[in-house]
């Protein structure tokens, strides 16, 4: 099962390698990892999606908490999960498919970032279902390149407090 962890960490050098090193050393798999500064510039938030059973997840959380630079770990339950990912997709097009692609992108509230030569680069934001649908839809036109931001998430339950 996939779990989304929201992890508040000290915003200084070396923290990312401590966290990623922990996952590789203990054989945990990272599905997705995204890091960025929070409203407090001394704190960064990592959104980590991991795959594993309850026992593995329990260990992941405990081992993360063991790191001195980790301030707080929150396991966001599926019902509280507010999740987004940005993907940029470059597809080939010809005069025949252009309109179809544009129509499809519009359905997903995507944007065309660039159209040059015979490629289109589009941006789509959404949850995983939407992201996968976009890939499926564009596949027949020939996807040339994909880049994904990694998932970012917040819990409906409100602010993850540093204190306590």
């Amino acid at each position, binding site marked *: 099962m996939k779990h989304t962890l929201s992890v508040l960490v000290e915003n200084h050098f070396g923290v990312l*390698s401590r966290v990623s090193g922990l996952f590789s050393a203990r054989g945990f798999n990272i599905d997705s990892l995204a890091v960025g500064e929070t409203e407090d510039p001394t704190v960064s938030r990592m959104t980590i999606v991991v795959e594993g059973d309850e*026992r593995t997840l329990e260990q992941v959380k*405990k081992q993360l908490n063991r*790191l001195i630079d980790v301030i707080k770990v929150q396991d966001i339950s599926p019902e509280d999960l507010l999740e987004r990912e940005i993907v940029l997709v470059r597809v080939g097009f010809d005069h025949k498919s252009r309109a179809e692609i544009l129509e499809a992108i519009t359905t997903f509230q995507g944007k065309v970032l660039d159209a040059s030569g015979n490629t289109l680069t589009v941006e789509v934001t959404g949850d995983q279902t939407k992201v996968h649908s976009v890939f499926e839809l564009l596949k027949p036109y020939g996807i040339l390149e994909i880049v994904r931001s990694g998932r970012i998430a917040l819990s409906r339950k409100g602010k993850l407090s540093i204190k306590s």
Partner: protein
Amino acid sequence: MKKLTGAKILIECLLKEGADIVFGIPGGANLPTFDALYDSPIKVVMSRHEQGAAHMADGYARATGKVGVCLATSGPGATNLVTGLATAFMDSIPIVAITGQVRTYMIGNDAFQEADTIGITRPITKHSYLVKDVRDLARVVREAFFIARTGRPGPVLIDFPVDVSLAETEFDYPKEVNIRGYKPTLTGHTGQVKKAAEAIKQAKRPILYAGGGVIASGAAKELRELAQKARIPVTTTLLGLGGFPETDPLSLGMLGMHGFEYTNYAVAECDLLIAVGARFDDRVTGKPDEFAKKAKKIQIDVDPSQISKTVPVDIPIVGDVRATLEALNKIIEKGETNGWLREISEWKKKYPLLYKEKKKLLPQYVIQQISEATKGEAVVATGVGQHQMWAAQFYQFNKPRSFLSSGGLGTMGYGLPAAIGAAFGRPDEIIFDIDGDGSFEMTLNEIATAVANKLKIKVAILNNRHHGMVRQWQDLFYKGRHAQSEMIGQPDFAKLAEAYGAVGITITKREEVRPAIEKALKTPKMVIMNFLVEENEDCWPMIAPGKPANEMLGTFEALQKEGAVPQPRKFKEETPEDLSLS
């Protein structure tokens, strides 16, 4: 306020932390530090190799309970510390390692003697710091000591670039430490403690399984109180040895791979297992699914990540072992354990350790004699292998901080430098290094450190001309093919001792053993006793890796058939208030 250099500030911080001794070797990148130490009140011990310095700091920490400090220069100095840091990390030993680093503006340039020390040591330290600004230094040192000694202790590394050690700033030592990501839970949850007390009251066949956490938190007294109040027998892990007096009738000695037969039976049959500062290591559990299968399990540990890691527990209590046992002892009620104690007492008589006399001297006998000659009161360091297991089986440890051994990492070569660290920490006590020839050869360069500092360490090499445990495994699991387990080209250790200025004694016969030990104890110098022992002696009993306890090899029954003679442990007479075992 007067300005001080980084190096001077470091010394001031060390003094504030009560570090009156450091172990290490100078080099280009830490010369300012050594220069500042030169006229400081801190005692500086120069080891012969940085691995030795790390083990000395570790041995000092284990023997005293204080934080050990080691120093190394950048690059090779730092990489040489790695084994020592990993050893301390696995066994939760508080040390602070301070490594030199190239100038901050050179970092990342492949400078002379540059290594990414923080990167290399990240997975084997509790935490680490690269000090890029001298104004951070005092806070960093304060935090490093705090992190090393609190919660689950462990090694902390400070990487200290040479330009930062020369830069000046005002010295202001922070009064408090406040690390928002580090707040160890110290007092066990009251509700959980109550549940544990209830389970103990209900239990008919309880066992206390005590680990290194008992030593680390200084909870030997509280453990004893619990065991005696509730009449529960106590087994310890390798690292827990000394946490409970082994002459106490409630003592079951060590459990696990080379634990006592009766102890492993007792663990298999218990209905309540109370893990106290112990982490269900694979050398203890064998096959985790089969470990203490019939028992409800309580686990007390300060590190939440150790709870239910390999074996699921029913009543977890996160907290400092001593504080938690104190709370538990206040509400504990004795259960009906007399029948269980009687049963265990019979097993103890029925399945003692045993060995068969051979033409050549037996290593077990040597350890029994050391145990008797020192009345179980020496501080004993060991290497890793058969001799280590025999020391755990045949020396009866009665006091905490008296057994220094690399349990988790299993670091051969740990014994001598750890004994040196202990000798500095406890100058008035008898310090033994019970070692194997293979282990001893890995760090024997530190004889010079012991001699230079006039330490009176007694080294007992159980010399079987082999990596004995490897040889035993090859006989058991690799069809007796002794691939590189024989030690060819060994020196005469007694002559080697003399060459270094220590006293060397060679012992080949049983009747020479005790006189040699007595002579060593009387000699006010370092003594190296080279016991030439039987080469093909195996360490029994043994639970093969990953096997359950009931598939033990080298049992009493098996060895007795071959003519082995029982070697029962000596227990203290029970006082009337001890109630009765029989």
